[in-house]
């Protein structure tokens, strides 16, 4: 099973929502659409689902051109960020609703609903109404409907965004299992880089209505081809600053210098943008070649077992992320160490050069 976009674009009242995009999404793993709010994730999903018309290009499912097919005939499922269930129907009827429309025989329908309900632990709640369920259960009901339908493609549009932390983690762990071996192409939209990494599979980075990069998630994380891609795929945000390269020396506006190595050393002289993930900027020195950065701590955050510090150095704000609880004082002059071997270098047009 595949979903393939060929130069598909979407224009609403003269405004381009999706620029011509080509993409092949396959079954067997999650296809994550990662991008910030407004990047076009939902627009792209609605396009694939047939909820919005194509302005140009084509969409294929399993090689069949579905560009002009109605949503219903495409045989897809969609789970929203909000918990969308039919308010007057019981959980059973909610899960069964697409099967009933398809005219499925009663015995098969009941078996399918029961199976989906069991997988999502809704067995005891089949006779309740959605509003009598908790948020997590309501979303599980929506997921059960998608599973029972056995559609060709399942679109999950930030399905966990409205759940609280614990439930989100729990359901996120279950999600890949739920759809494993079902044959459907699973598309999962999220704005959280962490979710993309946890769900694995393939990731399509989206920005400004266009897919900027697509491939196996880990690969994209390791090799963002543009500065935007690097920015989208980093939380806390990736540190980026202008450098001037002379010979093999890189120099920040604040005067900090270091020796560039590997492919970066061979770049022609000029200005570049260095980008380095927050966890490669640490409050302690690990290796002698680490580059010292002096900054004034502005904000500190503790999250679980990690500490982050936002510090100001010259014109630029930087972020450092380290394991353990690090005692920062806001306003203090702190020295951080940057592992420049982990840095990305981007040309002024934003493309990766080293």
């Amino acid at each position: 099973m595949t979903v393939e976009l060929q130069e598909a674009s979407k224009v609403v009242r003269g405004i381009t929502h999706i620029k011509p995009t080509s993409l092949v999404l396959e079954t067997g793993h999650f296809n994550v659409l990662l991008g910030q709010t407004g990047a076009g994730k939902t627009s792209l999903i609605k396009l694939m689902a047939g909820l919005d018309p194509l302005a140009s290009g084509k969409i294929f499912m399993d090689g069949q051109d579905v560009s002009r097919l109605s949503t219903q005939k495409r045989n897809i499922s969609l789970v929203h960020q909000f918990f969308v269930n039919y308010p007057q129907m019981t959980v059973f009827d909610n899960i069964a609703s697409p099967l009933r429309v398809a005219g499925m025989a009663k015995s098969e329908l009941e078996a399918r609903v029961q199976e989906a309900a069991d997988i999502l632990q809704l067995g005891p709640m089949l006779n309740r109404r959605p509003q009598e369920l908790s948020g997590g259960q309501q979303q599980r009901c929506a997921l059960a409907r998608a599973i029972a339908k056995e559609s060709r493609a399942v679109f999950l549009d930030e399905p966990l965004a409205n759940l609280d932390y614990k439930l989100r983690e729990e359901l996120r762990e279950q999600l890949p299992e739920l759809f494993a071996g079902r044959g459907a192409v699973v598309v999962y939209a999220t704005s959280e880089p962490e979710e993309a990494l946890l769900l694995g599979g393939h990731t399509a980075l989206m920005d400004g209505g266009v897919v900027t990069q697509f491939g196996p998630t880990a690969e994209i994380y390791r090799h963002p081809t543009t500065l935007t891609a690097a920015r989208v795929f980093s939380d806390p945000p990736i540190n980026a600053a202008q450098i001037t390269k002379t010979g093999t020396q890189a120099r920040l506006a604040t005067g900090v210098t270091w020796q560039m190595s590997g492919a970066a050393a061979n770049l022609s002289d000029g200005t570049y943008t260095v980008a380095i993930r927050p966890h490669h900027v640490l409050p302690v020195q690990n290796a002698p070649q680490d580059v010292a950065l002096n900054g004034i701590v502005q904000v500190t955050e503790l999250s679980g077992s990690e500490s982050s510090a936002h510090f100001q150095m010259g014109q630029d704000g930087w972020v450092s992320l380290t394991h353990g609880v690090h005692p920062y004082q806001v306003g203090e002059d702190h020295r951080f160490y940057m592992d420049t071997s982990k840095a990305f270098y981007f040309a002024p047009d934003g493309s990766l050069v080293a």
Partner: protein
Amino acid sequence: MKTENQRAWFFVLPVLALVAFNALIPIMTVVNYSVQETFGNNVFFWQGLDWFEQILRSERFHAALGRQFLFTFLILIIEVPLGIIVALSMPRQGMWVPVCLVTMALPMLIPWNVVGSMWNIFTLPNIGLLGYFLNDVVGLNYDMTQQPISAWVTIVVMDVWHWTSLVVLLSYAGLVSIPDAYYQAAKIDGASPWKVFRYIQLPKMKTVLTIAVLLRFMDSFNIYTEPFVLTGGGPGNSTTLLSIDLVKIALGQFDLGPAAAMSLIYFAITLLVSWLFYTLMTKDDAQ
């Protein structure tokens, strides 16, 4: 140490005073009249429940009550579905939305007795635009001043014209608050327009519809001004609804005692039916 005193009661006083002036005292005045006989000069004679008995046994009251229920029934059965249909066919976005909303709101902004006068002039046979049209162009025999049926059709149509907008606006508010996601889910399932209405729009409109039905019930059950101006309760007594009859007894005949008793019965019926409606329409939510 927690201080205990009765000071909290002082904070309740303003609301007590307000309720007293606004509801309690007027109602008690009516109760006062309903159990006594007066000939003016502030002289009262105790009557007990005589007036209530008289009203409840009175044919005239039964007839007016019957007309009242018929009128309200017609109003609800026409205005609620019609309001929903109009709301469903209104645009949800674009430049026509404000145009539709203002057009809908217009009838409700017109003072009630003006509505009555307007429709009176409009429907007068031979000189009113509609009256002339129906009689002399269409060839119907229409005269709301002479024929009970014509009079009824006219007051019902007038009320539909005046108040369907309320149901429309409330239903519309309920409709636009439904997230797009629900329609998308229905589209994905391939649900028919009827199923979308039955399982998404209607349930989501339920709260506002409850309010709409209650408001339309209370308003139509207590209606006075428009039919009074339009037909004055006639021809004969054919459009003498409860409140018109009440005013005839109280001010026309100056029978304050029976009128007061009738007011209380009238009030009790309105309250009871409203409660019934509310209980029936919200019983699903109570689980």
